[in-house]
């Protein structure tokens, strides 16, 4: 039985092709000069260069974290190229002028860049290696005052907003990879929802790594003013290489009074082959600051790719009655390693948080949930509920839970529960009895297992995630 389950999870990676496109790649290595070069290329103001250099200097003093439950060969930060961009043919005026090779790439990935063909009702910012190549529906959004553009564009056109908020949630010296990102970030998405505006469509960023020797260091900043609300989606893929690429992103969310930000990710970076060769190292810092009263930040993630995932989308619940949510499905297979979870920092009164984490490990993979729920003395009436469930497929995989609970206020109520289970023969037998084959049964069981999380995804993503899991688990059940 377990052999058929093994086969079920071994599906080829569909997004592993390389786009043959002329690319402008910076020489490998990291120094102050590299940073000055990136900053000059992007024609950045002085303060941003200073921000980068500060980050670089604090990064030099830091040590690579080793506490995560992942093993990998040391990364040579001097062997990475910190800038790679498709060579622009000319200055783009409209979408029709985007390099057709790029258009084809994204068509193939299912992210059409033409607005007429684009996913109905979703505005997309597309990041290819180090730069944003296109943003759809920009004008339509501008009508209601929403700014949605590439980070490098925001730096040019809205420097006051960027300067005010960049690094305000994840400071430059926050951690090793955040500092690295702050020093060398090249692009990303910037999104500003003005006071009282409910964003009329889902916003989304699609990340693609294409160059073998480069890393991707993008930076996303989302600001929701008083009473604003937005739903944001993120997707990522990369070609198959037998070397590892580094992806060290920083995402900052800021929600002011009564604002609501929903951030959903379907992460499908290349995970390496069945022997664990190649794949992306995904070392990401994501943090939301629920700054205003009654604000809400919700993270939903479906993590299926990457050789190594090191990611803890967090909520700092500062405003009174603010709400933090974290819904996660992490699927690991072959030699993938995921160490993911969340941090909920309760500071304001009557803050509430919910954590639902589902881990599925197959093959030789290791899947860890690592979470922190911290209630500070000021957080009277704080409430947390956490649930993390793991499912194991095959006896070579591992599932781990490291929940830290720190409570400094006696009016707080914190609950945590976790369970581990497997797809039992008896369950499959029950399905078989009712005339449902093993393959459909496994898919059903897994979808049922992940239902609490999928329900949180926006519709198109929920469909994509369900398909993604069943693709990954599809195969030869006999």
């Amino acid at each position, binding site marked *: 039985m377990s052999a058929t389950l093994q086969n079920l999870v071994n599906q080829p990676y569909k997004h592993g092709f390389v786009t043959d496109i002329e690319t402008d790649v910076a020489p490998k290595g990291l120094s102050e000069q590299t940073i000055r070069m990136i900053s000059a290329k992007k024609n950045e103001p002085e303060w941003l260069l200073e921000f980068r250099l500060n980050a670089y200097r604090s990064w030099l003093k830091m040590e690579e974290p080793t506490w995560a439950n992942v093993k990998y060969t040391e990364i040579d930060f001097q062997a990475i190229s910190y800038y790679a961009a498709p060579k622009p043919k000319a200055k783009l005026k409209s979408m029709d002028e985007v390099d057709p090779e790029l258009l084809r790439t994204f068509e193939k990935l299912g992210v059409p860049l033409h607005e007429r063909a684009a996913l109905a009702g979703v505005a997309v910012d597309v990041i290819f290696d180090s730069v944003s190549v296109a943003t759809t529906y920009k004008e339509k959004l501008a009508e209601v005052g929403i700014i949605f553009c590439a980070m490098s564009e925001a730096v040019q056109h809205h420097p006051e907003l960027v300067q005010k908020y960049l690094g305000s949630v994840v400071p430059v010296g926050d951690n090793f990879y955040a500092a690295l990102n702050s020093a060398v970030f090249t692009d990303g998405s910037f999104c500003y929802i003005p006071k009282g505006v409910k964003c009329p469509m889902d916003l989304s960023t699609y990340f693609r790594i294409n160059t073998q020797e480069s890393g991707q260091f993008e930076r996303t900043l989302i600001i929701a003013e008083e009473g604003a609300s937005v739903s944001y989606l993120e997707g990522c893929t990369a070609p198959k290489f037998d070397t590892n690429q580094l992806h060290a992103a920083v995402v900052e969310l800021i929600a002011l009074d009564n604002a609501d930000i929903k951030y959903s990710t379907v992460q499908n970076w290349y995970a390496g082959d069945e022997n664990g060769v190649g794949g992306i190292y995904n070392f990401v810092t994501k943090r939301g600051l629920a700054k205003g009263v009654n604000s809400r930040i919700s993270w939903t993630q479906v993590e299926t790719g990457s050789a190594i995932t090191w990611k803890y989308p967090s909520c700092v619940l500062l405003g009174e009655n603010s709400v933090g949510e974290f819904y996660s499905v992490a699927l690991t297979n072959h030699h993938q390693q995921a160490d993911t979870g969340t941090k909920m920092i309760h500071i304001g009164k009557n803050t509430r948080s919910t954590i639902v984490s589902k881990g599925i490990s197959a093959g030789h993979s290791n899947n860890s949930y690592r979470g922190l729920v911290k209630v500070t003395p000021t957080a009277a009436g704080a409430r947390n509920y956490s649930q993390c469930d793991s499912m194991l497929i095959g006896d070579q995989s591992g599932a781990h839970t490291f929940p830290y609970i720190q*409570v400094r206020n006696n009016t707080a109520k*914190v609950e945590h529960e976790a369970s581990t289970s497997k797809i039992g023969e008896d369950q499959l037998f029950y399905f078989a009895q009712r005339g449902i084959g093993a393959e459909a049964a496994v898919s059903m069981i897994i979808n049922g297992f992940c239902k609490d999380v999928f329900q949180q995804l926006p519709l198109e993503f929920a469909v994509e995630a369900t398909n993604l899991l069943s693709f990954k688990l599809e195969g030869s059940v006999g």
Partner: protein
Amino acid sequence: MSAPATTTAGYLESLLAGQPQLPASPLAWLNTLRAEAVDRVGALTVPTVRDEEWRFTDISPLTKLSFQPVSAPTSLQAADIERFYIEEATTRLVFVDGVYAPQLSSVAADAGVVVTNLAAAATDLAAIAPHLGQHAAFHDDVFAALNTAFLHDAAVLVVPRNVAVSAPVHLLFIATQKEAASYPRCLLLAESGCAVTVIEDYVALQEEAYFTNAVTEIALADNARVNHIRVQREGAQAFHIANCAVSLARASHFHSVSVALGARISRYNLNTLQTAEGTECIVDGLALIANNQLADTHTCIDHAQPHGVSRQQHKCIAGGNAHAVFNGKIMVRPGAQRTDSSQSSHNLLLSGRAHVDTKPQLEIFADDVKCTHGATVGQLDSEEVFYLRSRGLSEIVARNMLTYAFGAEIIERIPVASLKRQLGQTVLEQTSSQT
């Protein structure tokens, strides 16, 4: 970085100062073991909050004081310690400041077990050698290494094959002198098919600062059953650091209840290792602390073989400025199929300044297992208080009753009636005085 390292090295040296005065044992292997441990103490440093295992427990107050083994043992009369006796326990070994006190100890003739002190033991040494110092690893733990370096007097219990000992065995460790360091050591060998109940009990006759660094090793052979009850009621200024290592052979059954009431800073590491199939391991704990106390319990239940069952329930009640720490690790090794494990950590905060850090932790490497854990932190349920008040109880009585009930669930599991009564009373008094 180098400066504090030297300080702790200096501190460890000062703790070791009394070690050379220890009489050499007639047993060559024991002397070698001690020497190895002294070497390890030299190589290790005192843990700080930078070490993950000690992240929430700052033991720097310990390193500010100097402790030495007592030079002149206090002579106590039976009358001084009678109140600590447990009526069911006819066999009792008493250690005063870590030194064996034969005049206070008594071994029932019909006990059917070998109960002795290592320094005096002449019988059955062959049985001890493969176990002593072998279960409680001291290579990475500076406190276990210190204890092993001072290994001299030790409570040794050997329960022969297929013997069911009806009366519990009471190991009583009494602290009487301030600034004393004591290194209590227990070794329990439960041979196949035997059954025994052991009470490890730490008490104090004075309230000044002292340091207890205990190590207990328990080896269960096939089908053995051991009830291990551990009561830590040290003085209010005491430092108590203890390691307990348990090894479980085929189909053996281990039930442990540990109760932490005393000490300014206490730390208890309990590691159980399953060495064969079909073992059962039940680990219960209660920490009831107030004022500026810190109680830290770290447990690791290691399912290294198939068909292991483990059940753990740990509760903390923290009042005043107290700080409770719990870290419970359940390890399911590759191949340990059909493991069935559950763990829960429940914490009650009675005051606005009390705090708790809890981390139930699961590490699973086998797929056909059933593992669950849960943790809660909170205060008394206002609806429960309301219910009791609607029955005419005052708020304070209702709260005391609920707090008592919270702790009593663990106390109830102690299989020795008089001790259960005694501890129940203590919990009742302590929870009442805190409101």
